[in-house]
């Protein structure tokens, strides 16, 4: 085919020229913060009151970057009861230099003590400072956004579904030791 030499180059330059006349898309980052979606995995926040130091998050973490220390405390018996024991959280730390930001700890937590927050500005000069102790993790909790609503056609979130679901009647409660009805919960032990 007969082509005028340089057509390809001219076409490319035309794109550049057109683009030069358009508005730039530069974001003035430190002055203007980016708008991050609520699900954005920036930093992990801890709501200490909810934590029962059950260690599920620490055990499920693929690279074991969660450190938990706790001790047992005996609550004196209320009137007509017996003394109870409860776990007191001494230390909860996440090493963000090891964390892979997978979110398994947050998924594994059965007591809603861990949440994602989209904050990302916690880079440090010293890698050791990336170990966030529980007081620092608690500060992130104020930044946790509410979860986004689901798309039409989605099932309602399980929190809402559980609220509106009818309470299980006495008959449907499984007596202790009985076999589960659903084959799915076989591995529960």
């Amino acid at each position, binding site marked *: 085919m007969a082509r005028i030499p340089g057509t390809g180059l001219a076409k490319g330059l035309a794109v550049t020229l057109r683009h030069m006349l358009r508005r730039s898309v530069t974001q003035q980052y430190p002055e203007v913060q980016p708008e991050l979606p609520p699900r954005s995995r920036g930093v992990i926040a801890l709501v200490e009151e909810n934590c029962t130091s059950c260690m599920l998050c620490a055990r499920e973490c693929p690279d074991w970057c969660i450190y938990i220390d706790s001790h047992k405390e005996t609550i004196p018996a209320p009137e007509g009861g017996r003394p109870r024991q409860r776990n007191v959280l001494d230390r909860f730390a996440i090493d963000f230099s090891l964390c892979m930001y*997978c979110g398994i700890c947050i998924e594994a937590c059965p007591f809603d003590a861990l949440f994602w927050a989209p904050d990302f500005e916690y880079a440090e000069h010293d890698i050791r400072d990336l170990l966030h102790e529980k007081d620092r993790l608690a500060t992130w909790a104020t930044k946790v956004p509410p979860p986004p609503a689901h798309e039409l056609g989605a099932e309602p979130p399980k929190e809402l579904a559980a609220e509106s679901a009818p309470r299980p009647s006495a008959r449907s409660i499984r007596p202790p030791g009985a076999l589960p009805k659903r084959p799915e919960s076989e591995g529960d032990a």
Partner: protein
Amino acid sequence: MIDRAWEHESVSEPKEIVVGVGAGASAVPGKELATEDMVLNIGPQHPSTHGVLRLRLALDGERIATAEPIIGYMHRGAEKLFEVRDYRQIIVLANRHDWLSAFANELGVVIAVERMLGMEVPVRAVWARTLLAELNRVLNHLMFLGSYPLELGAITPVFYAFRERETIQAVMEEISGGRMHYMFNRVGGLKEDLPLGWLERTGRAVADVRRRLPDIENLIMGNEIFLARTTGVGVLDRETILQYGVSGPIARASGVDLDLRRDEPYLAYGELPVKVVTRSAGDCHARFEVLHDQLKVSLDLADACLERLRQLPPGPINQRLPKILKAPEGHTYAWTESPLGLNGYYLVSRGEKTPWRLKLRSASFNNVQVLREMLPGNLLADMVAILGSMFFVVGDIDK
């Protein structure tokens, strides 16, 4: 001066002179100048290897005599780590070997486990997965459409490619929370349902990318310098491809018409019109063209998935899983068409909560081995063009 010029002209026959200078001079046995092959290491820290691939080249002058890819500088023992992780934790690791196609990597693992469990995935999850896999393919291809010209000296296209990547990444981040390592697949579906308005925003993002794609085309596709550096360079023939197990866009650029999305449909691909892009030239330019055309096909598929997701009846996006998930005893091989080629997981389970063995067949590993055949005979200057057109990710080679 005049005398000498006259003298020179008077010489009737040209005389051959052998000149030896330096160390080579002593080795001149007779007439010919001795040449010695030079061994040149490209990498492991060379920009054109984008990562830590090392090539040991033996050079005969400017020509490459032999080439040997030396791999393993980024070996992280992913397969061994899989053996001590449960199936949710494996997804974290699996999406990291090829960091440009994280979603496609996750997909292989969960498909293998679901097949072992005989688990039926909800329809909405199947379509959402297909959509996300195609968006991931778009992201991957845009990366190489930007970085390949960059390696050949065209700096501008990468900015345009990254602008489009940003558009798609925004919707990926909105749904999964991650920009590269999505961690969004779970055995039995997806982690969470789609956020409100996401389908519409994704539709807009896909339309935006399609509208602005001609920018990249005009910048590079007809560029004479780009054509000169890629056309007819690094031709890979069908026979070598079959011998080395090369797959993906590289194989299709040499006329190997294989695409698992069409030939062995997984997810919802069976219901989609997957157009397989092929070229017959097998050179660097053909490989680039395949990538570019596949991008358009992926955008069309993404649109089809979006359309379908809007029409689907309400339903769940995942299955309720037991606290401890165990794959039954047995083995299976799940392979998917990853953006860079065939990505397979051979899962052997002994009924534990971790796999007994999870063998990973990654696309780049095979695709890079063929450099041994491709590079010899080419000029050293073309090495960068060939290497870049093999579209590999070092993490995917070294696992």
